[in-house]
């Protein structure tokens, strides 16, 4: 056990790049600030290359605070891809909204560092620090449209409830430390097998930890902040919160429950069973009545977290594989959908109502066809990524005897059919209400939309490759 800096090379790279970008803000003339966005994208690409090269590395680093394994490696690649997509759609967004490029990209890089650290963490304190680096950067980013009271409200609500939930999580960590005498994953798992798992302190600690994670992952009934925060935040940041941030929390939850708390499986499975059922039902039913597309996608992301929990509750490598594959599929389709919304919203995000999408089908084929692919994938219709995602998750859950929950999930997705299809019908089968208005599609955003659409179709046609990577990460 020693320091082994190389293990955290992608994170170190991003952190250094973030600091350098911050130093560059005052010296760059304001017309050239736009370069910061491309520099950040380059840094993310470099970190992605490093992470890919490190795929397959194993072993502890930083005195056991961090541990490299396939799960952490795969998660890290997912987060870097998600953040790179967010950075690319942000450049034109900031320009269009006449927002400062300066602090935005360093904060996005830092948020990525936080997500990445959570993925490779092997100690609850490290997990807490990663989560806080992610959260504090995200609070600022959610309120980045400072002139807009809605953005400020979004950030404030996110901050207050985020800090509140952090305190719960931290109290849980303190109690687990009290029961186990260590905050290391291995130490807690060992103490749990030696009889500590039955003590009140240990169970209370686990419960509080789950409350904290439930808040961050927007699991019902702790999801109430999500629609408001997602609606008020700038669109690229909504994408970041719905994809990267949510995936980081869910993967950490998966690792903790499967690797650290298998001894308490009965307790957390019961708790998550209820949370999963409630999350799927509330997410899908509440989405039915939404009129704003950002809010609609917020409820949809809540519902998808409910499906993902199925794989966590299954408590098997197959379940973990399903979770990882689903997260990859979910990331592609959700990032794509938000990229379309970002472009379509136009200046000051005026066009985010569902009604605004009326009749755009033939007028903006690139946007409408790709959005249709993403929505079909969110429903789970073949040949899209969402279909195989649901298939692998649900079959892993059936293997783990979660038949009732799977039936509930299928019924809940049937409800989801209505509101996703409603948007497709609006786009293609209704007459536009207003005269046509041009929708400029910047190059970077176009690339992101096309890549995400291609990825969604690729995973829907050839799932085998990504599935085997997910399997390796899940320890199959």
């Amino acid at each position, binding site marked *: 056990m020693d320091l082994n800096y190389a293990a955290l090379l992608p994170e170190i790279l991003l952190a250094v790049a973030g600091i350098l970008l911050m130093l560059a803000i005052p010296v760059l003339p304001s017309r050239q600030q736009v370069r910061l966005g491309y520099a950040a994208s380059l840094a993310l690409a470099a970190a992605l290359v490093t992470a890919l090269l490190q795929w397959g590395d194993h072993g502890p680093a930083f005195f056991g605070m961090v541990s490299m394994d396939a799960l952490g490696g795969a998660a890290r690649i997912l987060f870097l891809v998600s953040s790179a997509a967010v950075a690319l759609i942000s450049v034109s967004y900031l320009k269009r909204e006449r927002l400062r490029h300066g602090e935005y990209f360093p904060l996005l890089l830092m948020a990525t560092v936080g997500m990445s650290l959570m993925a490779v963490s092997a100690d609850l304190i490290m997990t807490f620090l990663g989560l806080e680096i992610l959260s504090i950067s995200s609070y600022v980013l959610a309120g980045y449209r400072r002139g807009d009271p809605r953005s400020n409200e979004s950030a404030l609500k996110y901050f207050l409830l985020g800090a509140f939930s952090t305190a719960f999580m931290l109290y849980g960590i303190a109690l687990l430390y009290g029961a186990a005498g260590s905050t290391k994953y291995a130490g807690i798992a060992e103490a749990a097998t030696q009889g500590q798992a039955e003590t009140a302190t240990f169970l209370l600690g686990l419960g509080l930890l789950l409350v904290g994670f439930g808040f961050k992952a927007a699991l019902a009934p702790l999801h109430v902040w999500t629609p408001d925060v997602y609606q008020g935040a700038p669109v690229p940041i909504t994408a970041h919160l719905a994809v990267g941030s949510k995936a980081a929390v869910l993967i950490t939850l998966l690792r903790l429950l499967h690797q650290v708390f298998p001894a308490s499986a009965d307790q957390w499975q019961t708790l998550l069973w209820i949370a999963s059922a409630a999350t799927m039902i509330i997410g899908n039913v509440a989405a039915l009545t939404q*009129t704003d597309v950002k809010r609609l996608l917020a409820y949809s992301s809540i519902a998808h977290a409910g499906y993902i929990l199925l794989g966590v509750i299954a408590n098997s490598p197959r379940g973990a594989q399903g979770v990882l594959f689903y997260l990859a599929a979910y990331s592609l389709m959700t990032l794509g959908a938000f990229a379309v919304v970002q472009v379509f919203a136009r200046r000051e995000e005026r066009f985010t109502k569902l009604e605004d999408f009326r009749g755009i089908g033939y007028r903006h084929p690139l946007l409408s066809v790709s959005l249709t692919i993403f929505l079909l994938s969110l429903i789970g219709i073949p040949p899209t990524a969402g279909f195989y995602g649901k298939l692998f998750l649900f079959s892993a859950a059936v293997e783990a005897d979660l038949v009732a929950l799977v039936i509930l999930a299928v019924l809940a997705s049937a409800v989801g059919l209505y509101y996703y299809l409603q948007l497709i019908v609006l786009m293609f089968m209704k007459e536009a209400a207003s005269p046509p208005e041009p929708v400029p599609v910047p190059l970077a955003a176009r690339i992101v939309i096309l890549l995400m659409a291609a990825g969604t179709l690729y995973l829907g046609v050839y799932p085998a490759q990504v599935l085997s990577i997910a399997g390796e990460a899940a320890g199959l």
Partner: protein
Amino acid sequence: MGMVPATHYLALGAVLFVIGVAGFIVRRNVITMFMSVELMLNAVNLTFLAYARTWNQVDAHIFVFFVMTVAAAEAAVGLALILGLDRHSQTLDIDSADKLQG
């Protein structure tokens, strides 16, 4: 001179934490809500230190420094956001933040 047993500190930590939770839920003033969260974090710090004594380890002392650093960073961001609320709506009442509705 008798030592105060660790359970006393744990009990005090639990009480402070519950006061923080109650304050967060009951109060409508954003600054008071934020102070309640700070109280919860300090209750956690006290709990960490009490356990550090029962386990006779220094690790938990270091965690407390981490928690304090994070709390300071959170305060910096949070107070800026609270200032933003005050500028937009000339009040610190959380119920005035109601522009986002479904």
